[in-house]
């Protein structure tokens, strides 16, 4: 179990000083999170003594005055980002948009300007809220770590010129993003696999081996953040089973999102350990019941009658196919976990026999819990799963079904079997749905495309239409107080309107 302030002693946490800021909380309870990073409080030369509490009460207050940003290692996807560059844990919550942390190494990287500002654009915060309330209305909150509230402020003066944080090709900025910024508030009881990888790379084994115990404890707690785990449950087989269960839970989450007609743009290379989708500021409300995708604006001409994948549309952009990226990320994680533990096992640390036995047992237990025919390792099983989802959700023509299944096989082969596939070219039809912009940046078509033969039933798009309208309406707001009021109104409206399955 991850306790409320579990992150304070996590090895991957970096404590960051904060100061009061100028945000207004939509919910009064979130007013305590009106903060921003204060790097100036770390003097170039100084002693930790100045941050040292004098009493136990001071210790609590002192810790509550800090943000805890988490270091991450995402295998194969470095991109100059080492962790939470604009986010962190604060008083039990996870905040995004509180300013540049010391982990924002990209602050001087022109190429990564969108992720180097410290802020969460208003449109990102709005989307986090809308998708969270929608999933709540559908009884599906479990598939994400929902945004429980927003704080909103007028945009920092340094960001008023959008070209300072958007590339020319990503302009124009949405009206709300030219005027406002947000902080998203989520529950803080989650960890990421990338945190575990970071810890694995940074074990402290030279002064006694207790860090090995901490590693496995945090792994077990992260996989089951809400379950108390006693010492008897901290055994290799139980941890390995929890890992397999978390993977299966995440796959179920993708199934649920697919059923509801929601996808997330950002590839989930960095999922929460317990399987919930974590970075939810770019949801796509495309609606259920058809096989579709959105196009890359730089390569796909809107109105085209056919699309080449993965050239015009990436495989990840096909609704439902995000699960392939998730499984890919998990393969990398499990492989790395196994090989790195084996290196530690073989290296000259003064492990006791029980410690070596634990590592050996865990490696065996992983193989047992995740055998070669498991969805994680078997491309065939993954393809069969996706095809079953499609059959269950879509009424498609036989010809379309064959084409779509071919697409599934190509996507799985490309991502999970590391084969370079030929382009797949498929006829597409624009879906009659007025879509909101996909995120703050102009990168994708503002229309969705159904593969020919998989046309959605218009009535099944009602909720998607409703959600896109709400997002578009919020994107146009430029006044802080009006945004606060409209967001609260949108939340209530979504809960009212979307209470039943689409």
């Amino acid at each position: 179990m991850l306790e409320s302030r579990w992150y304070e002693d996590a090895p991957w946490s970096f404590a960051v000083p904060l100061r009061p800021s100028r945000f207004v909380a939509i919910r009064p309870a979130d007013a305590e999170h009106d903060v921003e990073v204060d790097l100036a409080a770390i003097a170039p030369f100084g002693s930790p003594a100045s941050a040292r509490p004098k009493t136990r009460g001071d210790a609590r207050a002192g810790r509550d005055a800090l943000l805890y940003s988490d270091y991450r290692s995402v295998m194969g996807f470095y991109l100059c980002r080492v962790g939470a560059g604009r986010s962190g844990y604060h008083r039990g919550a996870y905040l995004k948009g509180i300013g540049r942390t010391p982990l924002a190494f990209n602050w001087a990287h022109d190429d990564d300007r969108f992720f180097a500002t410290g802020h969460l654009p208003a449109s990102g915060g709005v989307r986090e809220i809308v998708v969270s309330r929608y999933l709540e209305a559908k009884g599906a909150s479990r598939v994400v770590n929902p945004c429980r509230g927003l704080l909103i402020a007028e945009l920092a003066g340094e960001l008023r010129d959008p070209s300072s944080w958007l590339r020319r090709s990503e302009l124009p900025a949405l009206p709300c993003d030219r005027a406002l910024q947000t902080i998203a508030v989520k529950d803080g009881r989650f960890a990421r696999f990338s945190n575990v990888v970071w810890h694995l790379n940074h074990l402290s084994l030279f002064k006694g081996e207790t860090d090995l115990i901490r590693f496995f404890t945090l792994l077990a707690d992260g996989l089951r953040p809400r379950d108390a785990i006693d010492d008897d449950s901290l055994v290799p087989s139980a941890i390995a089973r929890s890992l397999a269960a978390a993977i299966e839970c995440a796959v179920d989450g993708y199934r649920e999102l697919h059923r509801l007609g929601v996808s997330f743009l950002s590839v989930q290379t960095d999922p929460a350990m317990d399987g919930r989708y974590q970075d939810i500021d770019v949801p796509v409300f495309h609606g259920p019941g058809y096989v579709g995708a959105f196009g890359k604006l730089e390569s796909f001409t809107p109105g085209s009658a056919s699309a080449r994948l993965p050239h015009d549309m990436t495989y990840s952009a096909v609704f439902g196919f995000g699960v392939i990226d998730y499984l890919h990320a998990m393969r990398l994680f499990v492989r790395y976990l196994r090989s790195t533990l084996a290196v530690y096992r073989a290296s000259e640390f003064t492990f006791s026999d029980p410690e070596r036995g634990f590592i050996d047992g865990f490696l065996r237990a992983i193989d047992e819990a995740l055998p070669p025919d498991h969805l994680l390792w078997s491309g065939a099983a993954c393809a069969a799963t996706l095809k079953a989802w499609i059959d269950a959700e879509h009424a498609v023509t036989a010809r379309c079904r064959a084409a779509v299944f071919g697409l599934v096989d190509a996507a799985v082969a490309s991502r999970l079997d590391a084969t370079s596939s030929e382009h797949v070219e498929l006829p597409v039809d624009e879906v009659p749905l007025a879509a909101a912009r996909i995120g703050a940046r102009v990168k994708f078509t503002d229309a969705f495309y159904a593969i020919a033969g998989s046309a959605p039933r218009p009535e099944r798009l009602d909720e998607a239409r409703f959600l896109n309208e709400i997002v578009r309406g919020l994107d146009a707001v430029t006044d802080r107080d009006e945004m606060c009021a409209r967001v609260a109104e949108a939340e209530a409206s979504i809960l009212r309107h979307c209470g039943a399955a689409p």
Partner: protein
Amino acid sequence: MLVDRWYVNAPWIVASPLKPSRFVAQRAEHAKFNVQTDPAAIAAFGGMRERADLDALLFSDLQTQTGFHEYGRLGSGRTGYYRGAYLKGIGRTPLAANWWRFGDRFHATGHLSASGGARELIVSRYFIAKGKGDLINPCQGLLVAELEPELKDARTWRRWSPDECLPCDLALQSISVKEGRFARFSNVTWHLNHLSIAKDENDLIRFFRLLMNGLLPFEPVDVDTLVPSRIARTVKETVERTIGHYREYFRLGINWLMPYNNFTMDGRFCDLDVPLFSGPGYVGAAINVEQWPAGSTEARAPDNLDFGSIFGLNVIAYLHQMRIVLRGLAAALDGLVDADFHTSDVERDFMAGVVGALAEAMPKEHVLWSGEACAAMVKGWIDEECEIDAARRPAIDALVDHAIALRLDHATMIGKTFGVEKVDLRCARAGASPNLTPSFYAVRGSRVRKDRLEEAQFLNDRVAELDAITDRDAFLAKCADAVAQIDRYCAGRAAP
């Protein structure tokens, strides 16, 4: 080859803003290094208005020491590359995640103590005077300032010690200046854990290029003709060259406390602020003061001292770290061969080839992997350098065997007691936050020749003189004086 500003585009580098500071350079050409970090210059929220002036930034390196992580130390927390040099003591960088951890206060202040700077300068000058400057990355000069007021109370940054804080450290702080053309294996390990290969970024090519350039920082490497066997051969030669450096440190009577991560990839010792001027010709040690009753005649490892603190034996710690680095490298490359990235067949073959070539270049009987070979080597060094009483020889050999068994052969930590005698040498303090005795101890049976300790005495005296100075300008003058004296006294002398 690492070119002058090689670090700007290294993947493990983090840029930080700087501002002018209040240091005075010992050498006029180092005045440009009078800078300190400026965390406040990174606003909480900000966009990209213009490209940063690279010469106005500090570039600090992320480091990963597999299994040897110190909580909060992510890399260069008070150091970085700047205008081609490597500066230590310029203030806390974004990698000082320990900034609020009182338990790690000695490494969390951003400053380099004056005594640390003085030692870097003295030991560097000594190596240069002996014609051995290439065994280390020498300190080229110091900048000195009056101590930051917040650090005037030494209890806020210094670990407990029965000894008072050195006078210079109560009044002054320093920046040391070194050559910037070096990388560490911990940088490479970091890169290995953070490769960007998911989007065809060619990071594998960059990885192997940086690996080779780090191993051969002063030689051009033609990446186009690079083959796995060449990489493996270079790694092997580097390991052997570095072992040779340890041999030479032992011969000269200079010992370093902690080899881990404190040497460059090409084998030069680079963190020079805690040298021990123990003098040559005997098997001895500096002993952990907290557990050492004064006047004791028996020491116990690992209670009173770590085996690595025994002069000549810290090559074992170097080999230990290299085993872990190379095992991690092979495992990671093996993993990438199997992983689900779009690496080409050529890339997979190359990675597999490097793994195979490393095994071939350094087989099981190589000194890196064979504890027996390591023991024979260290005993050979002792034979060549020390006069040992025949009756005590087995005890000293047993000490070597025990250290190797413990560090390299997975043996369980078992105490080992041996007799010691205080060496007749006036020692300077080991460093600003010493946890070592102010004397060196020879293992009983290892005869110390007084005439071979003259240079060590001279060096300890120079250090002790600097430790006593509290005025900035007097300190700078004394540094210059010490450098000249070392050149005069040590350059012409035969090896001690």
